[in-house]
């Protein structure tokens, strides 16, 4: 019996093999090997110029020095501070904007399909194009943003040229680009709500506000929560908009983690140092993912 089972297992393995080969090779080459190499690299001061062999890793081995250097230096914490500045501005703005979009599109009215496509065009635009557009939109003297502010009687700031206003400028571009994505995601959450809940609320005489806060919001929390974590993870991986709009400037005011990894790795060729940086990024993202999994069973309200 067990012999037969073993044989059938072997058979199944042979049958599955051709279907699994492409992804398995891909996994080994593009995920497994790089992860292992990256761990070792982060423990060296390899400069990217010498040929990398097992020997070079031993020769350049410095233990945890890279991690200690990063964590004890002021730069890492400053960079983290920039990311927090971004998050504090970005999360509330993108939440309000995308929730608004979702609620609007959820109404069954003529023309919602057109609005839907329009709100989604920024999502389809590449970050490179979007960053170029916003760099020009936010041009202090010749950009359209400060022109509009001037019409409203506000004298606009220097945006990307100002240490204080550069990050809010990047936030504006990011909210504009992402709100359609999160909006449609929340919309699918709204559409999954069983209409009988609204029926019951109506019968009980609940007004629109009570219905929104007591029925809609609790039932859509799983989607909101998912969006929140996704937005946080994205915030820590902020890169193209920074690289193109400010290159981390002015005066380092918009330097963020991925920008640092890229600069250390490919401008200064401090590959070991950059690898250590990337593992610290991994830790942050890992913690966020764990929180997500934990809390998902907690305060989020799921329809049973």
């Amino acid at each position, binding site marked *: 019996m067990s012999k037969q089972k073993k044989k059938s*297992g*072997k058979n*199944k*393995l042979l*049958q*599955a093999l*051709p*279907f*699994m080969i*492409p*992804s*398995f*090779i*891909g*996994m080994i*080459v*593009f995920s497994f090997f*790089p*992860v292992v*190499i*990256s761990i070792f*690299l982060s423990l060296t001061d390899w400069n990217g110029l010498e040929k990398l062999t097992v020997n070079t890793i031993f020769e350049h081995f410095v233990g945890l020095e890279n991690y200690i250097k990063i964590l004890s230096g002021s730069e890492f914490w400053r960079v983290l501070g920039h990311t927090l500045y971004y998050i504090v501005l970005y999360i509330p703005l993108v939440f309000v904007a995308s929730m*608004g*979009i979702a609620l*609007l599109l959820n*109404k069954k*009215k003529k023309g*919602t399909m057109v*609005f839907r496509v*329009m*709100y989604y*065009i*920024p999502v*389809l*635009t*590449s*970050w*490179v*194009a979007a960053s*170029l*557009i*916003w760099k*020009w*939109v936010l041009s202090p*003297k*010749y*950009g*359209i943003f400060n022109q509009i502010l001037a019409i409203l009687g506000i004298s606009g700031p220097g945006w990307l040229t100002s240490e204080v206003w550069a990050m809010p400028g990047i936030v504006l571009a990011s909210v*504009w680009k992402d709100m359609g994505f999160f909006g449609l995601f929340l919309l699918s959450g709204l559409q999954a709500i069983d209409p009988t809940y609204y029926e019951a609320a109506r019968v009980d005489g609940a007004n629109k506000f009570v219905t929104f806060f007591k029925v809609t919001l609790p039932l859509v929390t799983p989607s909101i929560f998912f969006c929140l974590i996704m937005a946080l993870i994205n915030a820590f*991986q902020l890169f*193209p908009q920074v690289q*193109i709009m400010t290159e981390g400037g002015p005066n380092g005011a918009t330097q963020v983690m*991925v920008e640092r*990894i890229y600069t250390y*790795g490919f401008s200064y060729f401090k*590959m070991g140092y950059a*690898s250590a940086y*990337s593992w610290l990024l*991994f830790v942050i*993202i890992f913690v966020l993912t764990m929180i997500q999994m934990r809390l998902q069973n907690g305060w989020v309200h799921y329809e049973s």
Partner: protein
Amino acid sequence: MSHKVKNILANVSYYAISVSIAIIVMIPFFWMISTSLKSKGALMALPVQWIPEEPTLNAYVQVFRKFPFLKAVGNSLFITISYTLITILSSSMAAFAFTKIKFPFGNGLFKVYLASMMIPTQVTLIPLFIIMDRLQLTDRYASVITPSLFKAFGIFLLVQNMRSIPNDFIEAAQIDGAGLWFIYRKIMLPLTLPAILTLSITTFMDSWNDYLWPLVMLTDRDKMTITLALNTLNGQYATEYNVLMAGSLISMIPIILVYIGANSRMKTGIMVGGVKG
């Protein structure tokens, strides 16, 4: 009567808000198009011209003159289409094996695949650059196409989908003497068509708009994708926004066409795939 008035008011406010948001979303695009039709001199003219006083297509000519932009469009199309096809093929094959062949260690391997999703691309970027450099694949299309072999998210999505296909279908086909490849091609792929279409669109978008990966791998102007072409133009002609905006507009056209095309296809796809189990 008052109910009717209330209804009209609700409608008016609904469209007022929707249109305002649409305008806010569209202003940067309006600014892009307006700028792309300006001459270099008109860019810095004060007061700012919302609509160019002397519109010209010169910036569009310049884009192609300053950079092999047409080649970049071709590169992007070739890379993106290959990338998407390989992702779909490799992911659907793996998902089929995971859900319907149930081979030993399959569940464990699937968990490893899932776990790999937690590794941010920035971690693998440097080692992969080294690997590609060693294999002498940098500055070749292969360096940006081959990572499509393993897309854990795609496999995850299709596994979720294929699980819902009843095993009876497969057993019935096997009794009729169908082989696994036949079942994969003639049963699994058609039945998961909506999910495959969704995956195709997101993969196409990601690949078309990708920045960091090609930035590291491709430095040869003749191999660059359209996002890299824009990036290079930005580096060399940072103040010529009319040219940059013209290039940005061109880069957006294919992806918008694909999205609109896919959106209309998707509805039929859902209908075709909606077989009652």
